[in-house]
Protein backbone atom coordinates (compact mmCIF):
# COMPACT_ATOMS: atom_id res chain seq x y z
CA UNK A 1 0.00 0.00 0.00
CA UNK A 2 0.96 3.65 -0.29
CA UNK A 3 1.45 3.72 3.44
CA UNK A 4 4.63 1.70 3.11
CA UNK A 5 6.06 3.88 0.38
CA UNK A 6 5.49 7.22 2.05
CA UNK A 7 6.41 6.14 5.53
CA UNK A 8 10.06 5.76 4.51
CA UNK A 9 10.64 9.44 3.73
CA UNK A 10 9.19 12.43 5.48
CA UNK A 11 5.99 13.32 3.73
CA UNK A 12 5.29 16.37 1.64
CA UNK A 13 7.38 19.21 0.39
CA UNK A 14 8.72 21.98 2.60
CA UNK A 15 5.94 24.41 3.38
CA UNK A 16 5.79 27.44 5.58
CA UNK A 17 2.01 27.42 5.54
CA UNK A 18 2.23 24.41 7.86
CA UNK A 19 2.74 26.80 10.78
CA UNK A 20 -0.57 28.47 10.02
CA UNK A 21 -2.37 25.13 10.16
CA UNK A 22 -0.65 24.29 13.41
CA UNK A 23 -1.20 27.62 15.07
CA UNK A 24 -4.76 27.29 16.43
CA UNK A 25 -4.22 23.82 17.91
CA UNK A 26 -0.86 24.78 19.31
CA UNK A 27 -2.15 28.00 20.86
CA UNK A 28 -4.86 26.20 22.85
CA UNK A 29 -2.50 23.36 23.70
CA UNK A 30 0.25 25.67 24.87
CA UNK A 31 -2.05 27.92 26.89
CA UNK A 32 -3.98 25.16 28.66
CA UNK A 33 -1.44 22.34 28.95
CA UNK A 34 2.16 23.35 28.36
CA UNK A 35 2.06 26.61 30.26
CA UNK A 36 0.18 25.11 33.25
CA UNK A 37 2.61 22.20 33.55
CA UNK A 38 5.45 24.74 33.60
CA UNK A 39 3.56 26.68 36.27
CA UNK A 40 3.07 23.44 38.20
CA UNK A 41 6.84 22.96 38.30
CA UNK A 42 7.26 26.57 39.48
CA UNK A 43 4.55 26.34 42.15
CA UNK A 44 5.97 23.04 43.38
CA UNK A 45 9.07 24.90 44.55
CA UNK A 46 7.07 27.10 46.92
CA UNK A 47 5.20 26.68 50.15
CA UNK A 48 1.95 28.31 49.06
CA UNK A 49 -1.59 28.26 50.46
CA UNK A 50 -3.15 29.62 47.26
CA UNK A 51 -3.94 33.03 48.77
CA UNK A 52 -0.99 34.79 50.35
CA UNK A 53 2.51 35.17 48.98
CA UNK A 54 4.36 31.90 48.57
CA UNK A 55 7.61 31.08 50.31
CA UNK A 56 10.48 29.57 48.32
CA UNK A 57 11.33 26.12 49.67
CA UNK A 58 13.33 24.62 46.82
CA UNK A 59 12.87 20.88 46.53
CA UNK A 60 11.33 20.44 49.99
CA UNK A 61 7.94 19.50 48.56
CA UNK A 62 9.61 16.73 46.57
CA UNK A 63 11.62 15.57 49.54
CA UNK A 64 8.35 15.31 51.45
CA UNK A 65 7.03 12.77 48.95
CA UNK A 66 9.77 10.42 50.10
CA UNK A 67 9.80 11.49 53.74
CA UNK A 68 6.14 12.16 54.55
CA UNK A 69 4.47 8.98 55.67
CA UNK A 70 1.06 9.93 54.29
CA UNK A 71 2.45 10.68 50.85
CA UNK A 72 4.56 7.55 50.79
CA UNK A 73 1.43 5.63 51.65
CA UNK A 74 -0.47 7.30 48.79
CA UNK A 75 2.14 6.21 46.26
CA UNK A 76 2.21 2.76 47.87
CA UNK A 77 -1.55 2.50 47.42
CA UNK A 78 -1.07 3.40 43.76
CA UNK A 79 1.28 0.41 43.46
CA UNK A 80 -1.37 -1.85 44.97
CA UNK A 81 -3.89 -0.46 42.49
CA UNK A 82 -1.49 -1.31 39.64
CA UNK A 83 -1.78 -4.96 40.65
CA UNK A 84 -5.57 -4.71 40.43
CA UNK A 85 -5.81 -2.44 37.37
CA UNK A 86 -2.99 -3.92 35.27
CA UNK A 87 -1.71 -7.30 36.43
CA UNK A 88 -5.11 -8.83 37.23
CA UNK A 89 -6.76 -7.79 33.96
CA UNK A 90 -3.70 -8.95 32.01
CA UNK A 91 -3.80 -12.45 33.51
CA UNK A 92 -7.58 -12.76 33.18
CA UNK A 93 -7.52 -11.14 29.74
CA UNK A 94 -4.88 -13.57 28.45
CA UNK A 95 -7.03 -16.47 29.60
CA UNK A 96 -10.26 -15.13 28.16
CA UNK A 97 -8.67 -14.10 24.87
CA UNK A 98 -6.97 -17.48 24.49
CA UNK A 99 -10.32 -19.20 24.98
CA UNK A 100 -12.14 -16.89 22.59
CA UNK A 101 -9.42 -17.19 19.97
CA UNK A 102 -9.18 -20.96 20.16
CA UNK A 103 -12.70 -22.20 20.62
CA UNK A 104 -15.08 -21.01 17.98
CA UNK A 105 -17.64 -19.87 20.52
CA UNK A 106 -21.03 -18.55 19.56
CA UNK A 107 -22.00 -15.12 20.70
CA UNK A 108 -18.47 -13.71 20.48
CA UNK A 109 -19.80 -10.35 19.32
CA UNK A 110 -22.19 -10.15 22.25
CA UNK A 111 -19.47 -11.10 24.72
CA UNK A 112 -17.15 -8.46 23.33
CA UNK A 113 -19.84 -5.79 23.56
CA UNK A 114 -20.53 -6.70 27.18
CA UNK A 115 -16.96 -6.90 28.48
CA UNK A 116 -16.00 -3.66 26.74
CA UNK A 117 -19.02 -1.78 28.06
CA UNK A 118 -17.43 -0.61 31.37
CA UNK A 119 -14.94 1.46 29.35
CA UNK A 120 -17.61 3.84 28.10
CA UNK A 121 -19.57 4.33 31.31
CA UNK A 122 -18.65 7.51 33.17
CA UNK A 123 -16.36 6.67 36.10
CA UNK A 124 -18.64 8.63 38.41
CA UNK A 125 -21.51 6.32 37.49
CA UNK A 126 -19.27 3.28 37.87
CA UNK A 127 -18.31 4.48 41.34
CA UNK A 128 -21.92 5.10 42.38
CA UNK A 129 -22.85 1.61 41.19
CA UNK A 130 -20.00 -0.05 43.09
CA UNK A 131 -20.76 1.93 46.22
CA UNK A 132 -24.13 0.28 46.09
CA UNK A 133 -22.55 -3.13 45.57
CA UNK A 134 -20.23 -2.65 48.55
CA UNK A 135 -22.73 -0.97 50.90
CA UNK A 136 -23.46 -2.71 54.22
CA UNK A 137 -26.94 -3.56 52.88
CA UNK A 138 -25.63 -3.79 49.31
CA UNK A 139 -25.66 -6.41 46.60
CA UNK A 140 -22.41 -8.09 47.56
CA UNK A 141 -23.45 -8.73 51.16
CA UNK A 142 -26.88 -9.91 49.99
CA UNK A 143 -25.14 -12.33 47.67
CA UNK A 144 -22.83 -13.57 50.43
CA UNK A 145 -25.80 -13.98 52.75
CA UNK A 146 -27.64 -16.03 50.15
CA UNK A 147 -24.61 -18.30 49.88
CA UNK A 148 -24.59 -18.77 53.64
CA UNK A 149 -21.41 -16.77 54.07
CA UNK A 150 -22.82 -14.20 56.49
CA UNK A 151 -19.58 -14.20 58.46
CA UNK A 152 -17.86 -12.52 55.50
CA UNK A 153 -20.30 -9.64 55.14
CA UNK A 154 -19.09 -6.17 56.09
CA UNK A 155 -19.19 -2.53 55.02
CA UNK A 156 -16.50 -3.08 52.43
CA UNK A 157 -15.55 0.53 51.74
CA UNK A 158 -15.44 1.43 55.45
CA UNK A 159 -13.10 -1.38 56.35
CA UNK A 160 -9.42 -0.52 56.88
CA UNK A 161 -8.23 -3.81 55.42
CA UNK A 162 -10.70 -4.25 52.60
CA UNK A 163 -11.34 -0.71 51.30
CA UNK A 164 -8.26 -0.57 49.06
CA UNK A 165 -8.74 -4.04 47.54
CA UNK A 166 -12.43 -3.20 47.07
CA UNK A 167 -11.46 -0.10 45.07
CA UNK A 168 -8.92 -2.23 43.22
CA UNK A 169 -11.54 -4.78 42.18
CA UNK A 170 -13.48 -1.98 40.51
CA UNK A 171 -10.33 -1.33 38.49
CA UNK A 172 -10.07 -5.00 37.53
CA UNK A 173 -13.71 -4.90 36.49
CA UNK A 174 -13.13 -1.72 34.50
CA UNK A 175 -9.95 -2.74 32.64
CA UNK A 176 -10.38 -6.46 31.94
CA UNK A 177 -12.67 -5.96 28.96
CA UNK A 178 -10.28 -3.50 27.33
CA UNK A 179 -7.32 -5.83 27.83
CA UNK A 180 -9.25 -8.88 26.59
CA UNK A 181 -10.42 -7.19 23.39
CA UNK A 182 -6.93 -5.82 22.77
CA UNK A 183 -5.26 -9.23 23.23
CA UNK A 184 -7.93 -10.95 21.17
CA UNK A 185 -7.19 -8.62 18.26
CA UNK A 186 -3.52 -9.57 18.54
CA UNK A 187 -4.16 -13.29 18.80
CA UNK A 188 -6.45 -13.34 15.78
CA UNK A 189 -3.49 -12.13 13.71
CA UNK A 190 -1.28 -15.10 14.62
CA UNK A 191 -0.94 -17.30 11.52
CA UNK A 192 -2.44 -20.79 11.94
CA UNK A 193 0.74 -22.43 10.66
CA UNK A 194 2.52 -21.48 13.86
CA UNK A 195 0.04 -23.53 15.87
CA UNK A 196 0.25 -26.44 13.44
CA UNK A 197 4.02 -26.42 13.70
CA UNK A 198 3.84 -26.40 17.48
CA UNK A 199 1.40 -29.27 17.43
CA UNK A 200 3.63 -31.30 15.09
CA UNK A 201 6.41 -30.78 17.62
CA UNK A 202 4.11 -32.38 20.16
CA UNK A 203 3.32 -29.27 22.18
CA UNK A 204 0.25 -29.41 24.39
CA UNK A 205 -2.20 -26.57 24.90
CA UNK A 206 -0.15 -25.06 27.72
CA UNK A 207 3.19 -25.18 25.94
CA UNK A 208 1.53 -23.89 22.80
CA UNK A 209 0.25 -20.91 24.77
CA UNK A 210 3.68 -20.05 26.16
CA UNK A 211 5.66 -20.85 23.00
CA UNK A 212 3.39 -19.39 20.33
CA UNK A 213 0.58 -17.22 21.69
CA UNK A 214 2.37 -15.25 24.37
CA UNK A 215 5.39 -14.11 22.31
CA UNK A 216 3.13 -13.16 19.41
CA UNK A 217 1.09 -10.70 21.44
CA UNK A 218 4.01 -8.98 23.14
CA UNK A 219 3.14 -5.69 21.48
CA UNK A 220 -0.48 -5.88 22.62
CA UNK A 221 0.62 -6.75 26.15
CA UNK A 222 2.78 -3.62 26.19
CA UNK A 223 -0.10 -1.43 25.03
CA UNK A 224 -2.40 -3.04 27.57
CA UNK A 225 0.07 -2.48 30.39
CA UNK A 226 0.68 1.13 29.37
CA UNK A 227 -3.03 1.93 29.33
CA UNK A 228 -3.88 0.14 32.55
CA UNK A 229 -0.86 1.20 34.60
CA UNK A 230 -1.52 4.83 33.72
CA UNK A 231 -5.20 4.40 34.58
CA UNK A 232 -4.20 2.96 37.95
CA UNK A 233 -1.82 5.83 38.68
CA UNK A 234 -4.44 8.39 37.67
CA UNK A 235 -7.33 6.96 39.71
CA UNK A 236 -9.23 9.96 40.97
CA UNK A 237 -12.98 9.92 40.25
CA UNK A 238 -13.32 6.44 41.70
CA UNK A 239 -11.64 7.29 45.00
CA UNK A 240 -13.35 10.67 45.24
CA UNK A 241 -16.81 9.09 44.98
CA UNK A 242 -16.31 5.82 46.84
CA UNK A 243 -14.02 6.57 49.80
CA UNK A 244 -12.51 10.08 49.66
CA UNK A 245 -9.27 8.39 50.59
CA UNK A 246 -10.68 6.84 53.73
CA UNK A 247 -11.20 5.19 56.09
CA UNK A 248 -8.26 7.03 57.66
CA UNK A 249 -6.04 7.41 54.63
CA UNK A 250 -6.19 3.75 53.69
CA UNK A 251 -7.27 4.51 50.10
CA UNK A 252 -5.52 7.82 49.50
CA UNK A 253 -3.81 7.88 46.10
CA UNK A 254 -1.56 10.51 44.46
CA UNK A 255 -4.27 12.04 42.24
CA UNK A 256 -6.60 12.39 45.18
CA UNK A 257 -3.81 13.92 47.27
CA UNK A 258 -3.23 16.52 44.54
CA UNK A 259 -6.86 17.58 44.77
CA UNK A 260 -7.14 17.26 48.53
CA UNK A 261 -3.98 19.24 49.27
CA UNK A 262 -4.66 22.01 46.75
CA UNK A 263 -8.33 22.58 47.53
CA UNK A 264 -8.85 21.03 50.94
CA UNK A 265 -5.69 21.68 52.95
CA UNK A 266 -4.35 24.77 51.18
CA UNK A 267 -0.99 23.10 50.46
CA UNK A 268 -0.81 24.08 46.81
CA UNK A 269 2.95 23.71 46.52
CA UNK A 270 2.85 20.17 47.80
CA UNK A 271 -0.08 19.38 45.49
CA UNK A 272 1.86 20.68 42.49
CA UNK A 273 4.91 18.63 43.46
CA UNK A 274 2.80 15.46 43.63
CA UNK A 275 1.26 16.30 40.25
CA UNK A 276 4.65 16.86 38.65
CA UNK A 277 6.02 13.65 40.17
CA UNK A 278 3.00 11.75 38.88
CA UNK A 279 3.55 13.18 35.40
CA UNK A 280 7.21 12.13 35.42
CA UNK A 281 6.36 8.64 36.68
CA UNK A 282 3.75 8.24 33.92
CA UNK A 283 6.19 9.40 31.22
CA UNK A 284 8.93 7.08 32.46
CA UNK A 285 6.60 4.09 32.65
CA UNK A 286 5.10 4.60 29.20
CA UNK A 287 8.49 5.07 27.57
CA UNK A 288 9.88 2.10 29.47
CA UNK A 289 7.08 -0.25 28.52
CA UNK A 290 7.11 0.85 24.90
CA UNK A 291 10.86 0.48 24.51
CA UNK A 292 10.55 -2.98 25.91
CA UNK A 293 7.89 -3.84 23.39
CA UNK A 294 9.98 -2.74 20.34
CA UNK A 295 8.33 -1.39 17.25
CA UNK A 296 5.49 -3.79 16.84
CA UNK A 297 2.80 -1.50 18.17
CA UNK A 298 2.51 1.02 15.37
Amino acid sequence: MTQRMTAARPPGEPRRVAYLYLLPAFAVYAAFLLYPIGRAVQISLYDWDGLSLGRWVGLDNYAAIVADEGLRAAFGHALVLIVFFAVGPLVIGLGLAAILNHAKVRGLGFFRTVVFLPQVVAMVVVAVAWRRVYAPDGTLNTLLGALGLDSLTRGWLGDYTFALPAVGVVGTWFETGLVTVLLLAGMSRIPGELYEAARLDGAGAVREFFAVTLPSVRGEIAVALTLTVIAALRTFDLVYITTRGGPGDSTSVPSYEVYHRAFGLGQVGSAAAIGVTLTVVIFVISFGINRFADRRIA
Partner: protein
Amino acid sequence: MISRGERVANYVILSVFAAFALFPIVTILSAALGPADSGGTAGLGNFAAAWEVGRFGTYLRTSLLVSAFVVVVSVLLSIMSGYAFGTMRFRGQSVLFYLFMLGIMMPSEAVAVPLYFDLRTLGLIDTFWSVALPQVALSVAFGTFWMRAYFRASNRAIVEAARIDGASTWRILWQVLVPPARPAVVTLTVLVFMWTWNEFLIPLIMVTSESLRTAPLGLAFFQGQYTSGFTLLAAGSVIVATPVVVFYLFLQRHFVRGLLQGAVRE
Protein backbone atom coordinates in the same frame (compact mmCIF):
# COMPACT_ATOMS: atom_id res chain seq x y z
CA MET B 1 -10.63 -30.88 17.81
CA ILE B 2 -12.07 -29.42 21.00
CA SER B 3 -13.69 -31.88 23.35
CA ARG B 4 -17.23 -31.45 24.54
CA GLY B 5 -16.13 -30.96 28.13
CA GLU B 6 -13.71 -28.24 27.14
CA ARG B 7 -16.41 -26.52 25.15
CA VAL B 8 -18.77 -26.51 28.10
CA ALA B 9 -16.01 -25.26 30.38
CA ASN B 10 -15.28 -22.42 27.96
CA TYR B 11 -18.90 -21.31 27.91
CA VAL B 12 -19.06 -21.44 31.69
CA ILE B 13 -15.93 -19.28 32.05
CA LEU B 14 -17.20 -16.75 29.52
CA SER B 15 -20.65 -16.62 31.10
CA VAL B 16 -19.20 -16.09 34.55
CA PHE B 17 -17.14 -13.27 33.23
CA ALA B 18 -19.98 -11.66 31.31
CA ALA B 19 -22.03 -11.83 34.51
CA PHE B 20 -19.22 -10.13 36.44
CA ALA B 21 -19.05 -7.37 33.82
CA LEU B 22 -22.80 -6.81 33.95
CA PHE B 23 -23.24 -7.19 37.71
CA PRO B 24 -22.87 -3.52 38.77
CA ILE B 25 -24.74 -2.34 35.69
CA VAL B 26 -27.66 -4.63 36.48
CA THR B 27 -27.50 -3.55 40.12
CA ILE B 28 -28.00 0.06 39.17
CA LEU B 29 -30.56 -0.57 36.43
CA SER B 30 -32.75 -2.67 38.68
CA ALA B 31 -32.49 -0.09 41.46
CA ALA B 32 -33.45 2.67 39.03
CA LEU B 33 -36.54 0.74 37.99
CA GLY B 34 -37.35 -0.36 41.53
CA PRO B 35 -39.79 1.14 44.03
CA ALA B 36 -39.46 4.89 44.55
CA ASP B 37 -37.59 6.05 47.65
CA SER B 38 -40.79 7.41 49.14
CA GLY B 39 -42.30 3.97 48.74
CA GLY B 40 -44.45 4.95 45.79
CA THR B 41 -44.69 3.38 42.38
CA ALA B 42 -41.81 1.65 40.68
CA GLY B 43 -40.60 2.08 37.13
CA LEU B 44 -39.96 4.80 34.62
CA GLY B 45 -41.44 7.48 36.84
CA ASN B 46 -38.16 7.40 38.77
CA PHE B 47 -36.36 8.93 35.81
CA ALA B 48 -38.83 11.80 35.66
CA ALA B 49 -38.41 12.30 39.40
CA ALA B 50 -34.61 12.31 39.13
CA TRP B 51 -34.85 14.73 36.21
CA GLU B 52 -36.79 17.13 38.44
CA VAL B 53 -35.51 16.50 41.97
CA GLY B 54 -31.91 15.85 40.98
CA ARG B 55 -32.01 18.63 38.36
CA PHE B 56 -30.43 16.30 35.83
CA GLY B 57 -32.16 18.19 33.04
CA THR B 58 -29.95 21.24 33.72
CA TYR B 59 -26.81 19.17 34.12
CA LEU B 60 -27.42 17.34 30.87
CA ARG B 61 -27.88 20.64 29.07
CA THR B 62 -24.51 21.92 30.34
CA SER B 63 -22.83 18.65 29.43
CA LEU B 64 -24.32 18.82 25.96
CA LEU B 65 -23.09 22.38 25.40
CA VAL B 66 -19.59 21.66 26.73
CA SER B 67 -19.29 18.42 24.76
CA ALA B 68 -20.53 19.98 21.53
CA PHE B 69 -18.04 22.83 21.84
CA VAL B 70 -15.10 20.61 22.77
CA VAL B 71 -15.86 18.07 20.04
CA VAL B 72 -16.33 20.59 17.23
CA VAL B 73 -13.36 22.77 18.12
CA SER B 74 -10.90 20.02 18.91
CA VAL B 75 -11.79 17.94 15.85
CA LEU B 76 -11.39 20.98 13.57
CA LEU B 77 -8.09 22.00 15.15
CA SER B 78 -6.83 18.40 15.09
CA ILE B 79 -7.65 17.99 11.40
CA MET B 80 -5.66 21.12 10.62
CA SER B 81 -2.67 20.29 12.78
CA GLY B 82 -2.72 16.64 11.73
CA TYR B 83 -2.71 17.83 8.10
CA ALA B 84 0.39 19.94 8.71
CA PHE B 85 2.25 17.14 10.50
CA GLY B 86 1.08 14.43 8.12
CA THR B 87 1.60 15.99 4.70
CA MET B 88 4.05 18.88 5.03
CA ARG B 89 7.65 19.35 6.02
CA PHE B 90 8.81 22.27 8.10
CA ARG B 91 11.48 23.33 10.54
CA GLY B 92 11.02 22.04 14.08
CA GLN B 93 8.53 19.46 12.92
CA SER B 94 9.67 16.59 15.11
CA VAL B 95 10.21 18.75 18.19
CA LEU B 96 6.71 20.19 17.86
CA PHE B 97 5.26 16.75 17.29
CA TYR B 98 6.90 15.33 20.41
CA LEU B 99 5.59 18.32 22.33
CA PHE B 100 2.07 17.35 21.26
CA MET B 101 2.73 13.73 22.17
CA LEU B 102 3.56 14.72 25.74
CA GLY B 103 0.02 16.02 26.02
CA ILE B 104 -1.44 12.57 25.34
CA MET B 105 0.13 11.23 28.50
CA MET B 106 -0.06 14.37 30.62
CA PRO B 107 -2.35 13.70 33.59
CA SER B 108 -4.97 16.43 33.92
CA GLU B 109 -4.43 16.29 37.70
CA ALA B 110 -1.03 17.92 37.28
CA VAL B 111 -2.24 20.84 35.16
CA ALA B 112 -5.63 21.41 36.75
CA VAL B 113 -4.18 22.92 39.94
CA PRO B 114 -2.07 25.69 38.34
CA LEU B 115 -4.84 26.27 35.78
CA TYR B 116 -7.32 26.90 38.55
CA PHE B 117 -5.17 29.56 40.22
CA ASP B 118 -4.18 31.27 36.97
CA LEU B 119 -7.73 31.32 35.67
CA ARG B 120 -8.85 32.68 39.01
CA THR B 121 -6.41 35.55 38.64
CA LEU B 122 -7.87 36.22 35.19
CA GLY B 123 -11.41 36.05 36.56
CA LEU B 124 -12.24 33.13 34.24
CA ILE B 125 -13.01 30.58 36.94
CA ASP B 126 -16.57 29.28 37.05
CA THR B 127 -17.20 30.07 33.39
CA PHE B 128 -18.00 27.92 30.39
CA TRP B 129 -14.48 28.56 29.06
CA SER B 130 -12.74 27.28 32.17
CA VAL B 131 -14.50 23.94 31.70
CA ALA B 132 -14.29 23.69 27.91
CA LEU B 133 -10.87 25.05 26.89
CA PRO B 134 -8.66 22.80 29.07
CA GLN B 135 -10.52 19.84 27.63
CA VAL B 136 -9.96 21.11 24.08
CA ALA B 137 -6.24 21.21 24.87
CA LEU B 138 -6.26 17.63 26.20
CA SER B 139 -8.23 16.38 23.19
CA VAL B 140 -6.18 18.24 20.61
CA ALA B 141 -3.03 16.40 21.69
CA PHE B 142 -4.56 13.03 20.91
CA GLY B 143 -6.48 14.39 17.90
CA THR B 144 -3.30 15.70 16.29
CA PHE B 145 -1.62 12.33 16.74
CA TRP B 146 -4.68 10.55 15.35
CA MET B 147 -5.23 12.71 12.27
CA ARG B 148 -1.51 12.85 11.47
CA ALA B 149 -1.42 9.06 11.34
CA TYR B 150 -4.38 9.11 8.98
CA PHE B 151 -3.04 11.81 6.65
CA ARG B 152 0.40 10.19 6.46
CA ALA B 153 -1.21 7.02 5.18
CA SER B 154 -3.54 8.78 2.75
CA ASN B 155 -3.12 8.66 -0.98
CA ARG B 156 -0.46 11.13 -1.99
CA ALA B 157 -1.05 10.79 -5.74
CA ILE B 158 -4.45 12.47 -5.48
CA VAL B 159 -2.95 15.29 -3.45
CA GLU B 160 -0.21 15.82 -6.02
CA ALA B 161 -2.78 15.81 -8.82
CA ALA B 162 -4.90 18.40 -7.03
CA ARG B 163 -1.84 20.54 -6.42
CA ILE B 164 -0.87 20.42 -10.11
CA ASP B 165 -4.42 21.51 -10.90
CA GLY B 166 -3.67 24.58 -8.80
CA ALA B 167 -5.75 23.77 -5.73
CA SER B 168 -4.74 25.62 -2.57
CA THR B 169 -3.63 23.71 0.52
CA TRP B 170 -6.93 24.71 2.15
CA ARG B 171 -9.00 23.24 -0.70
CA ILE B 172 -6.86 20.11 -0.85
CA LEU B 173 -7.51 19.54 2.83
CA TRP B 174 -11.27 20.01 2.87
CA GLN B 175 -12.20 18.80 -0.62
CA VAL B 176 -9.65 16.08 -1.31
CA LEU B 177 -8.39 14.71 1.99
CA VAL B 178 -11.19 15.12 4.51
CA PRO B 179 -14.11 13.48 2.63
CA PRO B 180 -12.47 10.01 2.53
CA ALA B 181 -11.23 10.54 6.09
CA ARG B 182 -14.72 10.23 7.49
CA PRO B 183 -14.15 6.98 9.43
CA ALA B 184 -11.07 8.44 11.16
CA VAL B 185 -12.94 11.65 11.94
CA VAL B 186 -15.93 9.74 13.31
CA THR B 187 -13.66 7.71 15.60
CA LEU B 188 -12.02 10.88 16.87
CA THR B 189 -15.41 12.50 17.36
CA VAL B 190 -16.86 9.68 19.46
CA LEU B 191 -13.71 9.46 21.59
CA VAL B 192 -13.61 13.18 22.32
CA PHE B 193 -17.32 13.15 23.02
CA MET B 194 -16.94 10.30 25.48
CA TRP B 195 -13.95 11.85 27.24
CA THR B 196 -15.65 15.20 27.55
CA TRP B 197 -19.00 13.85 28.64
CA ASN B 198 -17.42 11.61 31.28
CA GLU B 199 -14.80 14.10 32.52
CA PHE B 200 -15.04 14.78 36.21
CA LEU B 201 -11.93 16.47 37.62
CA ILE B 202 -11.91 19.60 35.44
CA PRO B 203 -15.56 20.55 36.06
CA LEU B 204 -15.13 19.66 39.73
CA ILE B 205 -12.30 22.16 40.09
CA MET B 206 -13.46 24.88 37.72
CA VAL B 207 -17.16 25.11 38.53
CA THR B 208 -18.89 26.46 41.62
CA SER B 209 -22.26 27.64 40.33
CA GLU B 210 -24.88 25.00 39.92
CA SER B 211 -25.92 26.10 36.44
CA LEU B 212 -22.50 25.11 35.09
CA ARG B 213 -22.38 21.63 36.60
CA THR B 214 -21.89 18.89 34.05
CA ALA B 215 -23.79 15.61 34.34
CA PRO B 216 -21.12 13.60 36.21
CA LEU B 217 -20.46 16.53 38.54
CA GLY B 218 -24.17 16.93 39.19
CA LEU B 219 -24.40 13.24 39.98
CA ALA B 220 -21.50 13.47 42.44
CA PHE B 221 -23.17 16.36 44.27
CA PHE B 222 -26.53 14.63 44.21
CA GLN B 223 -24.90 11.58 45.72
CA GLY B 224 -23.51 13.69 48.54
CA GLN B 225 -26.77 15.47 49.31
CA TYR B 226 -29.51 13.00 48.64
CA THR B 227 -29.70 10.50 51.47
CA SER B 228 -33.28 9.27 51.45
CA GLY B 229 -32.61 6.18 49.36
CA PHE B 230 -30.86 4.81 46.34
CA THR B 231 -33.56 4.75 43.67
CA LEU B 232 -33.28 8.36 42.51
CA LEU B 233 -29.50 8.19 42.64
CA ALA B 234 -29.59 5.08 40.46
CA ALA B 235 -32.02 6.72 38.05
CA GLY B 236 -29.74 9.76 37.87
CA SER B 237 -26.75 7.52 37.17
CA VAL B 238 -28.57 5.86 34.32
CA ILE B 239 -29.46 9.26 32.88
CA VAL B 240 -25.82 10.38 33.06
CA ALA B 241 -24.42 7.19 31.49
CA THR B 242 -27.01 6.68 28.77
CA PRO B 243 -25.87 9.14 26.04
CA VAL B 244 -22.39 7.61 25.72
CA VAL B 245 -23.68 4.05 26.07
CA VAL B 246 -26.18 4.63 23.24
CA PHE B 247 -23.40 5.99 21.03
CA TYR B 248 -21.31 2.98 21.96
CA LEU B 249 -24.02 0.50 20.99
CA PHE B 250 -24.34 2.09 17.56
CA LEU B 251 -20.70 2.94 16.87
CA GLN B 252 -18.98 0.17 18.82
CA ARG B 253 -16.35 -0.36 16.14
CA HIS B 254 -15.18 3.25 16.45
CA PHE B 255 -14.98 3.13 20.23
CA VAL B 256 -13.00 -0.10 20.26
CA ARG B 257 -10.66 0.97 17.48
CA GLY B 258 -9.98 4.35 19.03
CA LEU B 259 -9.46 3.11 22.57
CA LEU B 260 -7.18 0.28 21.49
CA GLN B 261 -4.90 2.29 19.24
CA GLY B 262 -2.91 3.91 21.93
CA ALA B 263 -5.44 6.31 23.33
CA VAL B 264 -3.70 6.84 26.62
CA ARG B 265 -6.01 9.59 27.72
CA GLU B 266 -9.09 8.64 29.72
